[in-house]
């Protein structure tokens, strides 16, 4: 009679998790071929257009082109827009008093 030792299933589960991790890491290596063609294509566009920044955070000029934004300008787009990088992208400009207008909403819009 061979009884199951408590470590057997636990080690099997841990081993399986480690194997999954290994598979995921292998997938990383495997996916890198496709990634490299995509990156090469993007790099080509970057070269052709002379782009300097990614389009990841497009909400304001100091986030779309963080490398080229002015260094010392508060309220670049909105008085409520935080000028410092991460806060500015995480906290949106409040909806009030009006998106895109500076405090005063044009008469026509009312």
């Amino acid at each position: 009679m061979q009884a199951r030792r408590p470590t057997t299933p636990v080690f099997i589960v841990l081993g399986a998790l480690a194997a999954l991790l290994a598979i995921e890491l292998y997938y990383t290596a495997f996916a890198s071929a496709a990634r490299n063609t995509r990156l090469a294509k993007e790099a080509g566009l970057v070269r052709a257009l002379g782009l300097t920044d990614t389009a990841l955070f497009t909400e304001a000029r100091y986030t779309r082109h963080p490398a080229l934004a002015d260094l010392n300008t508060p309220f670049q787009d909105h008085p409520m827009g935080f000028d410092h990088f991460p806060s500015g992208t995480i906290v949106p400009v409040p909806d009030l008093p009006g998106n895109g207008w500076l405090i005063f909403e044009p008469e026509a819009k009312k």
Partner: protein
Amino acid sequence: MTPWLRRQRALADYTLASLARRKGKNIALVAVYAIVVFVLASAMFFAASLRFETSAVLRDAPEVTVQKITMGRQDLIEGSVAEEIGKIRGVTSAKPRLWGYYYDRIVGANYTVMVPDDPEMIPEPGSVIVGEGIPRARGFKWSGAPLFLSRYEGDLKRFDVARAFESDSALMTSDLMLMNEADFRDFFEIPAGLYTDVVATVRNPNEVATIVEKGSNALPQMRFVTRSDIERTYQKLFDWREGLLAALAAAGILAFVIFAAEKASGLSAEEMREIGILKAVGWDTRDVIAMKLWEGGLVSLGAFLLGTVTAFAHVFFFGAPLFAPILKGWAVIYPDFALAPHVDGLELLTLALLTIVPYIAATLVPIWRVASGDPDAVMR
């Protein structure tokens, strides 16, 4: 197997048999810790992937960008500056660029409008080439729908969409709108001879610093931004976002570790008696410590593996839906692209250290305190 390994396995067996008595509670413990690891791992994987992407893509960005700064703000630059920079030794080419932002009031998004230099990219007058994000933001149902842009109340200008960039370049081009120069100057009312900035390419990358120095001496009112500045900015930027989430996760780990230390030091009378029995039947202090370390090791290793594996799937197979809002911010146009998986030993080692070390550290001293009881206590 050596006796050492057999002893370890026997100790692990005991630990597990004793954990199995409160199976639900202990599985819940691993699961909660795994969630903390998952948060941390997701943030790290996401940031590492973005860092990798940007540095790979921006490797071909222009070496030097020159801006004109007036009263601390960026100003339009004269085309003649390009010629002057082109004369600096080591500069292969210097071209003025025209680009700017257009705020689309209809959808509340910012577009980046640009005049391409490459003749193949220049659209016909009256038409534009757009990134995949713009038709998406505008909700275009069919391709070829014209784009109407208004600069002020009552103004409306029609552009035909000549073509759109494929979404596999979305990371760079999502919000991009390419126009020809005449349309651009007309649309933004920019006088001829003025440009946004100047980009220069350099023959030998090692000379960039010298060129920047010479350039700043010749043109003191200009700001020179180098490619490594840009790359550095990006590395820091993603570090910042990662750090933000990591700090949150660290608070989670801390809370968990305090809980673990509390659990290890506040053993119930029943558990104390069990350890007394073990010592009485011939277990050494060291055996008890090793047995309890197995408990901590299995809990933290299990949580580490579980958290890491699920975080990988979460970020790279499902696009990090849980944390995207924090990592992406509130961008209206967020590029629609699949993150390329990129994980290296650095991240895994950091994760392992951050999850396993504090857990073991917090439980070691309480474990030892329990383990060093008198073996004859159970007889008294």
